[in-house]
């Protein structure tokens, strides 16, 4: 039997663009915020896991934080870097080996779309030379087919973005803080049909740090902890359809998100109906829609009704989704993005989300928070947190 693990400190460096501050410096800022939140000093931390995709190694942060000789493992797992850092630090404590661990993610990307190298993904050069090495195309190709098969309208894509920007206006750590109306979103330049400019998130900058503790340590410190009920990271099963694929099997395969979601719900011993607030990977509007179904919150096609009725709004009646504006309003610093979702759930479960606080529903407190991240080359991470 493994130990219970709690998040007792959460820190964030605002997302967006911060000229003059490196990605790693933003990481250090987030760690200091998290330490302050937990009432700890850096020498208290016993082990650390962290990384970035484009802003260097995390373990160099000890230069600024202090040379305490702690084991610091660099994590490089694409979009799941944060999720993997969280899973590793959770395991470090659950195993009973440590009482206090740090999970940290940060990044700083150049402007414009990501430019991945074909060889890094086991693809031939022609795939990039001819203009297929683009994550945005994958998202468009996946939602285009989904819309045809399940009757999702373009307006519903627009509503997802409209909600994200609205939530961003009341989120201090968000990048996009101004509302954008549905007409503007729908009539913006087309990037990859059916997705317009405002339906995509942009690469950005930012950092998040979380401090994890054993139950014993949390009680000893009298800390304000949120319990990690389940963490699950899954890579793709056979015949799945993922980003950067020159071909897909004609046999329809499984999905890493479905696998990670089912495993997390099973570990937690609860179901989708128990969740009070969810952060779902929304690299673009279509992803949020498809991930609502892949994570078990609705059936394929029901999103049309959900969005039309505002059921994913804060206080919208069913399930608030991406309460801080998600990737659409916060941007996507790859190494930090998955941890931002967890940060947001910690903030919501502690009741500290201010204007964007999810309200109690029918006298039921905000108890379970769900976060989901997806990335190349086809892996998903899910975390379920509980306010006891």
């Amino acid at each position, binding site marked *: 039997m493994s130990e219970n693990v709690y998040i007792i400190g959460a820190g964030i460096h605002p997302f967006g663009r911060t000229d003059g501050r490196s990605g790693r410096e933003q990481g250090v800022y987030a760690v200091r915020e998290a330490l302050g939140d937990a009432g700890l000093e850096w020498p208290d931390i016993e082990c650390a896991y962290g990384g970035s995709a484009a802003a260097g190694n995390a373990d160099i942060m000890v230069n600024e934080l202090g040379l305490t000789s702690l084991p610091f493992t660099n994590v490089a797992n694409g979009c799941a870097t944060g999720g993997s850092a969280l899973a590793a630090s959770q395991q470090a404590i659950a195993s009973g080996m440590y009482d206090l661990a740090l999970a940290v993610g940060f990044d700083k990307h150049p402007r414009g779309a990501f430019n991945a190298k074909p060889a890094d993904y086991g693809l031939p*050069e022609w795939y990039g030379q001819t203009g297929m090495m683009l994550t945005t195309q994958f998202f468009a*190709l996946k939602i285009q087919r989904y819309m045809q098969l399940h009757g999702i309208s373009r307006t519903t894509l627009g509503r997802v973005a409209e909600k994200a920007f609205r939530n961003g206006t009341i989120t201090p750590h968000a990048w996009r803080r101004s509302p954008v109306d549905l007409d503007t979103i729908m009539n913006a330049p087309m990037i*990859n*049909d059916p997705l317009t400019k405002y339906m995509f998130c942009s690469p950005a900058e930012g950092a998040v740090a979380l401090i994890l503790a054993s139950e014993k340590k949390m009680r000893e410190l009298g800390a304000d902890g949120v319990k990690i009920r389940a963490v699950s990271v899954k890579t793709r099963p056979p015949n799945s359809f993922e980003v950067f694929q020159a071909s897909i*099997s004609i046999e329809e395969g499984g999905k890493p998100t479905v696998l990670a979601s089912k495993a997390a719900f099973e570990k937690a011993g609860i179901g989708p109906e128990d969740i009070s607030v969810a952060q779902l990977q929304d690299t673009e509007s279509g992803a949020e829609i498809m991930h609502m179904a892949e994570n078990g919150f609705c059936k394929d096609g029901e999103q049309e009704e959900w969005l039309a009725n505002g059921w994913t709004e804060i206080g919208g009646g069913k399930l608030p989704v991406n309460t801080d504006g998600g990737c659409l309003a916060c941007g996507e610093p790859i190494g930090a993005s998955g941890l931002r979702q967890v940060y947001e759930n910690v903030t919501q479960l502690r009741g500290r989300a201010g204007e964007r606080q999810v309200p109690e529903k029918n006298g039921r407190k905000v108890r379970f928070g769900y976060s989901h991240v997806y990335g190349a080359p086809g892996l998903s991470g899910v975390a379920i947190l509980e306010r006891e």
Partner: protein
Amino acid sequence: MGEKIDPNLWSDGPQPQLMGGKLPSGQIVFPMPVGDAAQGVEPHKLSRRGTLWSWTSQGFLPKEPYEGPGSGPGEGPPDFQPFLIGYVELPGEVIVESRIVDARLEDLHLGMELEFCVVPFNARYDTFAFRPVAAAESQAA
């Protein structure tokens, strides 16, 4: 005709075909694997006919390693030519990602019949694409 963008991507001759691979399990993959991954994989010429599985448009100039119009020295976004891209289901074989040519975005629909073709890509290279069967037949007429 330019050079092939990859010498092993499609077969030569008047009716070229994309080169896939047949795994020992019988599953067809594309492209044909190279190096150690090619062990036990039989080269397999893919069907020239298929149906549209999904599609999108490319509306902005991709960064490197893109080598199409707009990517050359002294070129930029104004030189970029938007293009269509999709997945084409080759019945009983595999679903391949490809450029879609000789079609307008608004004409594309699931299950649309498409045919393989070789098209100019840049000053040096040709690449592969699929085009609507109707367009192929009207050009032949």
